[in-house]
């Protein structure tokens, strides 16, 4: 299956992925409605996008009490809006923090790989986000450990 491969060292923090994602997901250019989220590291000198890994367990999918989360043609876990009642169990069951809830629609939403043509990967100007046939991985761990450690050392864990 193709996954979103993240190379955090290439991310410039431009937020184009969030803009593209929110437009695909909810039809608005609104980073708050994006399901890929760019986080700052090292006091806003490094950035990395973070999104759903489409994990094997599918904690969101198995937790849903009404079968409102399924697997789409791209292999992504996808919310069926007409089944979702907005109970939020998926947001608390997902241990990656990548299930979102929209108070205006009272529905859960998440990365569905745009059905196989992810807008974030298209929008990324530096190929920090690629849509590739590779095993999914913890793309940010080493990057974050190093960059966040820098903050720890400089500020003694406080800022």
């Amino acid at each position: 299956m193709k996954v979103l491969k993240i190379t955090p060292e290439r991310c410039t923090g431009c937020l184009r992925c969030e803009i593209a994602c929110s437009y695909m997901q909810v039809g608005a250019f609104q980073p708050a409605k994006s399901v890929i989220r760019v986080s700052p590291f090292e006091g806003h000198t490094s950035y990395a996008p973070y999104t759903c890994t489409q994990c094997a367990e599918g904690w969101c999918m198995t937790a849903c009490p009404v079968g409102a989360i399924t697997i789409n043609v791209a292999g992504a876990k996808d919310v069926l809006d007409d089944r979702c009642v907005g109970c939020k169990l998926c947001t608390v069951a997902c241990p990656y923090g990548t299930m979102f809830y929209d108070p205006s629609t009272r529905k859960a939403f998440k990365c569905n790989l745009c059905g196989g043509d992810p807008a974030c990967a298209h929008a990324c100007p530096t190929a920090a986000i690629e849509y590739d046939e590779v095993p999914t991985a913890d793309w940010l761990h080493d990057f974050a450990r190093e960059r966040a450690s820098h903050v720890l050392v400089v500020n003694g864990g406080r800022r």
Partner: protein
Amino acid sequence: MPRRHLIIGGGTAGMNAMRTIREEEREASEITLVSAEKPYSRMVLPYYLDRSIAESHVFTASAALLAQWKVKTHVGRRATGLDVKTSVCTLDDGTRIEYDDCLVATGSSPVRAPVPGADGPNVHSFWTLDECRGVIASIKHGSHVVMVGAGFISFTILNSILALGAKLTIVELAPRILPRMVDDAGAKVVEDWLEAHGVTIRTNVKLTRIEGARGKKRLKFASGADLVCDVVIMATGIKTNLDWLKDAGVRINRGIVVDDHLRSSVPTVYAGGDVAEGRDLVSGEPAVHAIEPTAQEHGRVVAANMAGRDVAYKGSLIINIVEVCHLDAASFGAWDDARAEVISGVKRDRSAYRKLLFTGDRLTGAIIIGRSGDVWTTNDVGMLKGLVQTGVPLGRFKEYLKSHPFDVKTAYIAAGTAGTLLPETVLGRPSKAPGETPVAV
């Protein structure tokens, strides 16, 4: 290989078990379901209560689906006895069902405060679909509803009652709301929020009697003024449905005591969901977790073992989330562990609260409260669950989290939590989508 599986209870554990048997088995087996009610999801009843979904939406298995799964059904029947020596289950209509192995997943029932008038007209429990229908029929726009008990069940229907245009008062015996879900400081944040949204709360009051009062209900308390209202909803706790099993020879403590394969003291009898006393993931101690995710995981693990696989269960994690008037409150794991190292933070102006509990350099419990519209609330809810679920060593990022309790993501990513989680599955294989369950050949 057991050929005849009996599922007693058509709730979350039972439904997940039947589906998983069909997913796992190589050769077709017999599945028989005994369920007192047509299977539906209790989790979604609040959304039927305020009519945001149709009644048909609550059902989790149509007769057609059960037929497709080749399940023999005894719907509307209750199990009344289990003879574990001859492996026969007796139903309330006298039917006897022979089995090779069975799952006891008979769930819980609501308990009402033991006061005169508690069983009178316009006093409701909110647990079953029938009770939901009863509440729907009794609440009108402008009704005054009193909820007795300020626990999780009350809070799941609070939004719906307000959405119906009713006035709401909550009374609670304990000194604070949500006594089994959040701590004192968290309860205060939620209580202030609710009062700002027009809900009246009276804590520390002992209900002594409910009387009829010219078409209304009058509630009397050990101290303080009476309350007069139109509808009373009792949400004063639940008890496990195990009376029918108490002489069967299956070991019962607070629930049916099960091993790491969810087998009871009788190897052909499994238990799951509210009636099972299994391992708590965080403490490792036996516990009854009467929550939806535990029932779901129990049901699937039992089924994999019934289908001939050897699947051990690591234990269940206490997770609760409830939204009231667009404020989220969630808690995980050992959030009330008095021995843990605790850090908490509150942002009063945003009604946000965090409590993180550490054992060594691992997060073993958490409480998070924040506005549903705050983007980072939902991210952090999941990440805190991930940290508690994995128990990943935080190392020096523990200090970071302690000084930045509202910045969970940095510590979460830097500790490698996602990498720890990726290989983890409940059944040792990728999950299948709900609609993909094959019918065995």
